[in-house]
């Protein structure tokens, strides 16, 4: 299996500040953080996603989206094949998610928090 290319255009060399930080919490990209300034944040295997996760084959090309509504963070599943989960609960439509709480897309655990990241993709 050939390793997919990481979208290097999104990689920042210096620490950057941002509103939202998405951190990968397991798998080959464990510890990678992506900083986004604005919502919505798209997550998927395709390179046009804000959070691009090329190594997890259980993730759909456009798998999920993070949105902000009425001051709350919500995760929406984009009709992915293998689903989006918060804890053991599969997301149908959208669901509120607390900052710092883990959610799973495919086999990859992600965590969204606010603040600054050390070395990130953007």
């Amino acid at each position: 299996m050939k390793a997919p290319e990481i979208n290097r255009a999104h990689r920042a060399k210096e620490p950057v500040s941002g509103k939202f930080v998405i951190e990968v919490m397991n798998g080959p990209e464990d510890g990678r953080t992506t900083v986004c300034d604005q919502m919505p944040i798209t997550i998927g295997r395709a390179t046009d996603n804000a959070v691009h996760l090329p190594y997890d084959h259980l993730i759909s090309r456009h798998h999920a989206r993070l949105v902000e509504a009425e001051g709350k963070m919500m995760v929406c599943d984009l009709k992915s094949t293998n689903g989006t989960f918060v804890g053991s609960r599969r997301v149908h439509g959208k669901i509120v998610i607390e900052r710092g709480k883990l959610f799973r897309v495919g086999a990859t655990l992600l965590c969204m928090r606010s603040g600054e990241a050390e070395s990130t993709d953007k």
Partner: protein
Amino acid sequence: MFEVGQTVENQYLVLERYRGRRWTLYTVLDRISENVFTVKRPSESLRSDAFSAALFRERAKTWINVGECDEIAKAYLIKDFDGIPHLFVEYIDGPTLADVLNLSPGKPLPVNQIIGLMKELANGMRFLHTARLPGESIGVIHGVLTPRNILTIAGNIKITDVGLSISMQQRADASAGSLPDRIHYMAPEQIEDPQRADRLTDIYSFGAVMYEAATGAPPTINVRRGDPLIEAVRLDPVSPSLRNRSCPQWLEETILKCMARKPENRFQSIDQIISLVNDLAGNEGIPQVSPDDKGESEEASRVARVRGVAKKESRRLDHYYLGVEHVMIGLLNEEESVVVSCLGDMVTADQVLEKMLSRLPKGEGPWYWDGIRKTPRYERVMKLARKIRRAYSPSDRMLPQHLLLAILEEGRSIPVRVLRELGVDVGTVAENLKREIMRRRPAIVVPDSGIPGARFAGVVPCTTDVPYCVPFVGRRSELERTRDLLLNDRKGVLLVGDAGVGKTALVHELACVASDGAPALEPGLTGIFQLRLAALLAGSADGEQALSYLGEMLDGIVGAHAILLIEDIPTLLGLDIKMPARGAAEILGDYILSKGLLVVASALPSGYAFCESNYPELVARLEIVNLREPSFEEMLEMLAAAKRRFELEHSVNISDDALAAVLRASEIFVSGSALPGKAFELLDRICAARACTRASGGALEQETITAACVEGAFSDGDKQASQNEDWVLNT
């Protein structure tokens, strides 16, 4: 004098005894607290008059009051036995720095170990020099720091004999015919005036110890002509780089500044040395250690092994990338004790491993990476581990502890999340580990006994002259019989004889036989190893653990084709605390019967009777060799063999008539041990008193012995007084 196996005041069981020039050291088990202590009894020469005895008490009290420090051995209390002060000190299970350096004479320690040693020594000395004592006084002077009073425990150092070296004895030593060992470590002004001891003389001694570590030999006293003491005062030490070409310049300069002839040219405080060493470490001024250094490569290979397991696990799980979780699996596999000791009894390694594996995603087979891919978190953790290593151990390679601390401090990886789920307070664990890294990092590498898994056995050296022991004279028949039983018949031996009859000398002679002639009879025989009962008891948390360690040690002895020596076996078999004696007897019996363990044990006649009545099965597996009391002529020969040592030590001349007189007198005036041991004890006492008073120009004649005994100063009690006159009349 106490004997091994004796219980003093119904509380302190004597486990071991070592007699040195200045001290007799006992290792005792306190039956009440169940702790093991070292008890220091000053020699005759250190307590021969009221002033010396008072001085000893004064200095011992200062040591007790100095407080606690990782680098200083703790002194607890002074207790009088038979009117003689005995100092109770922390038991330290490890060799002295001198023993470590003597393992490779002339060979310097690796640079990283020198730095470690320097830091620990400097910390200990700073603690002493700034200690707050009762009565507003500040600071304690060590006196003379030498490799002999620096003990090691698991590679860390403990300074002992705090303040005890400053005594009248220094002048006596300096004026004796032979140079005492510690003169190499004494500042010039201290050699001229042995009473002088201050912070700057301590700094000189510190430099001299570091000199030996850096060059493999103590600073040379150039004894070419004239008075060696004057030479020592006048001459500068040979430059360390002339003895060790690889000695770094910064180290040489530091050592030579410590050892400057004039006190005002030395470092003026230990703090100056500490800040210099820290600066060098911070600026990377300390050269890198060569990769062929054994200690370094061992430490480095520990982390390399962890990484190796991590990679293997990654492949096994079809992950084909290297993450923190794989490193944790590596740590749990290769360094379980590090992880478990850090987590305490909160969770087990198996629990962590099981839960972590359940959290790992299924692998997707091999990716075609360029090499193995490392996760960003792995890179972050390794960077943090390197930072931790630089902060806490700048001269060392990375240790598994650094890796574990980095994982805990990073705080977001799978292993840490798993620990939190298991209820572990990760922050506290990290703090404890940080303290542990700062405190327990070994400064030097201390070689073990050479037997795998046998921490509690020490080599019995082949030597015909064991200090302060009855020399081996005659006894060929007993030696031959013991050798035949062990090597031809492959049977264990129990040496039975009174205290002072010469059992130890026979064992050392047997060690020579085992190393010389025995390999022909018994191929692969590696020598005699003595059970270190005190270390075994001190190192065990409970009886179960003690028995488990005993079994491990016996496995090591059997595996190494060695002979086990158990000095005074009734002490082991009479234990009622710390280790179940019956369990120990059963294990020993099993190993002798089923695994072919070769044992040499010793016992007093009363101890033999105890063993025979309580452990008949074990005794039946040992052949008894009785050690008779030597003939008068043999005993004279033994005394004559040791005469030179007494003369040198006490600066006296002993006539042959005096030896015969001592033999006759000891029969009457010394109780508690057999001849010839008690003759040696009496001779030592009289020589010490003679050396102290310098009467008759230090000569020891028959008349001197008579006079000393009639004075009654050396009798064991008043009950002997009436016998004095009879004895004088008979001689």
